[in-house]
């Protein structure tokens, strides 16, 4: 037996049917017929292959990967909702999954009745729910609506209700699958805070997210799944760095699709060669156009796949043939690291002339970012110079 709050998953394999998974008599008969005739089954699709993960009590692991890479399947297996095909699995202690539990809500019942329903589904005892009832209502911000039937709730209210019940669990292990994208910004912040509080109480965390910054800020370890296989595992910053590199490589493959314009050349740098924090940065691009055009030119910088850190824009008259566009950023507000340059050109009606896409990456030299205290806060993507004065009064 592993100590409470630990996860030991070794060589986990999971497969699904490769054929369209309809489950009607006709389909089953066809399968059986194939089996009897010795044609074998119509094949399986591996969702996870040889995935291992060990987490000690209080550890925090982030799982990243593109859509369909097996992240959610793996989380379902850890949650014991799905069974692996092969492998050894031990999950010890009370597990809570912060998932979109809106599915369990019954539209005809009131919010209050649904709190009991959802709580029981998540394994809470009635007494426990009764004891936390007010807290849950307050957290979900549903105070006046709690006597109302859930069918009159907005989708945001339903999500808040489900999430608030899940958040009131006191688990040893917390599984989080992208739910923090729920609700408005204020509620998201509240959910982050709740997760942070649970973490500081020593809960083990497995966190699946596309938001790499919050994974980096929350987790100490990470695994990157690619087509069901662990492509990288270990310290979170190394894993994320590898993942970002791969994202950027695939993004390059998309360049040149759609639009009438073409990027002939891109150069990013400074007069001294590489870019540096709070130094000048020069971006030079050459755009080729088949005819003269009036357009709007957008230039952005991001950390990997995430949303841009900043975007610059100006009107641009393109002549037939090549046009060079040079941009000077006087003091680059970026910390040390690798960043991606995005370009997009649109006509006045907003149609793509050149789709918004990453064109190149560049490295910035400079001071390391100060890590924020452990917890669920975004790593600051900008570097700000400041002068400090501390005086005793």
């Amino acid at each position, binding site marked *: 037996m592993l100590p409470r709050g630990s996860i030991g998953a070794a060589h986990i394999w999971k497969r699904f049917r490769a054929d369209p998974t309809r489950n009607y008599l006709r389909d089953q008969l066809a399968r059986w017929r194939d089996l009897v005739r010795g044609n074998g089954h119509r094949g399986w699709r591996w969702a996870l292959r040889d995935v291992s993960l060990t987490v000690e009590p209080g550890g925090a692991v982030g799982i990243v990967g593109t859509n369909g890479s097996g992240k959610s399947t793996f989380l*379902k297996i850890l949650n014991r*909702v799905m069974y692996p095909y092969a*492998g050894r699995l031990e999950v010890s202690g009370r597990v809570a999954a912060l998932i979109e539990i809106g599915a*369990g809500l*019954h539209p*005809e*019942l009131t919010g209050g009745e649904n709190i*009991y329903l959802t709580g*029981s589904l998540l394994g809470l005892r009635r007494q426990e729910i009764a004891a936390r009832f007010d807290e849950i209502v307050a957290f979900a911000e549903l105070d006046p609506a709690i006597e109302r*039937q859930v069918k009159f709730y907005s989708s945001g209210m339903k999500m808040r209700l489900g999430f608030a019940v899940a958040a009131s669990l006191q688990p040893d292990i917390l599984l989080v699958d992208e739910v923090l994208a729920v609700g408005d910004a204020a509620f998201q912040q509240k959910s982050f805070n709740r997760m942070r509080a649970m973490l500081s109480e020593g809960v083990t965390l497995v966190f699946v997210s596309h938001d790499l910054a919050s994974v980096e800020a929350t987790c100490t370890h990470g695994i990157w799944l690619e087509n069901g296989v662990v492509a990288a595992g270990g310290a979170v910053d190394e894993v994320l760095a590898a993942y970002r590199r791969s994202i950027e490589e695939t993004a390059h493959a998309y360049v040149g699709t759609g639009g009438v314009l073409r990027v002939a050349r891109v150069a990013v740098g400074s007069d001294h060669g590489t870019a540096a924090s709070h130094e000048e940065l020069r971006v030079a691009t050459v755009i080729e156009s088949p005819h003269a055009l009036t357009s709007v030119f957008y230039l952005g910088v991001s950390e990997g796949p995430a949303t841009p850190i900043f975007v610059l824009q100006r009107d641009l008259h393109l002549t037939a043939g090549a046009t060079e566009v040079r941009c000077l950023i006087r003091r680059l507000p970026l910390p040390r690291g690798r960043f991606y340059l995005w370009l997009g050109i649109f006509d006045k009606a907003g149609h793509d002339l050149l789709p918004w896409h990453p064109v190149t990456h560049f490295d910035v030299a400079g001071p390391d970012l100060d890590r924020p205290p452990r917890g669920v806060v975004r790593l600051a993507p900008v570097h700000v110079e400041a002068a400090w004065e501390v005086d005793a009064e």
Partner: protein
Amino acid sequence: MDHLTAVPAQPPVHLRYHRRLHLGEAIRELWTARELIRTLVERELRARYKQAVLGTAWTIIPPLTLMLVFTFFLHRGGRIDTGGIPYPLFAYVGLLPWTFFSASVSRGGQSLLQNAALLNKVYCPREVYPISSIVIAGVDTLVALPILAIMFAIFRTAPQPSTLLALPLLAVQLAFTFGVTLIVSSVSVYLRDLRHALPILLQLGLFATPVAYGSEVVPAALRLPYAFINPLAPVIDGYRRVVLLGQPPAWDAVLAGTLSSLLLLALGSILFKRLETGFADVA
């Protein structure tokens, strides 16, 4: 990245995941989930009575209607031998267990599919869904029970003292109902069109079971095999004997029914546990 190439195409055989199943553990887990079952039952009942204007009436109407239909169409002119019992009473005593069985199977059979959204989100013993359907059918039966008391008053009779013997019959009935519901619910996940066949099968079952008529229509030589195949037959016959006639049940037939009910329950449990591992994959 060398790890990528190191992953074999198939997992080695010794790694195959085998779920260890212990009967005791499964039962203990179900016991801890009893509050969940209660909540699921409450959810159904509350929701139902919020929607329906007639409320409880809807649970009484099905057996009552069938009783009236049988009385006026099947029994016309005393065609059915009831052993001296007023026919409506005779039919209603048979209809109560049948309605319980039929409601359990049709509602419980769909319970997993209806809760498919929960199956791959929330961990709980999967049996809670069919079980809560059976409990709801049980509550409905209890609600329909007072009608029986009214009928006793109308026909100026009373239940016989031997009614206590109904308890072991009830146990057999529950075992059989649970077994069938487990099978139908788990198979329905993989054979979704069973939903369309089920009402027809239940309709046939109603006439293959001595609900509208007595057990005497079955030839004496076939009575035991019949009881084995359809355990509801000796159970319903037993209810009539102990409640209405003051006789003991036909124990040999009840024993045959008990045997097959337990077999079916064991089979249903094993099948359910087997198929359970795939519910979340296909739901």
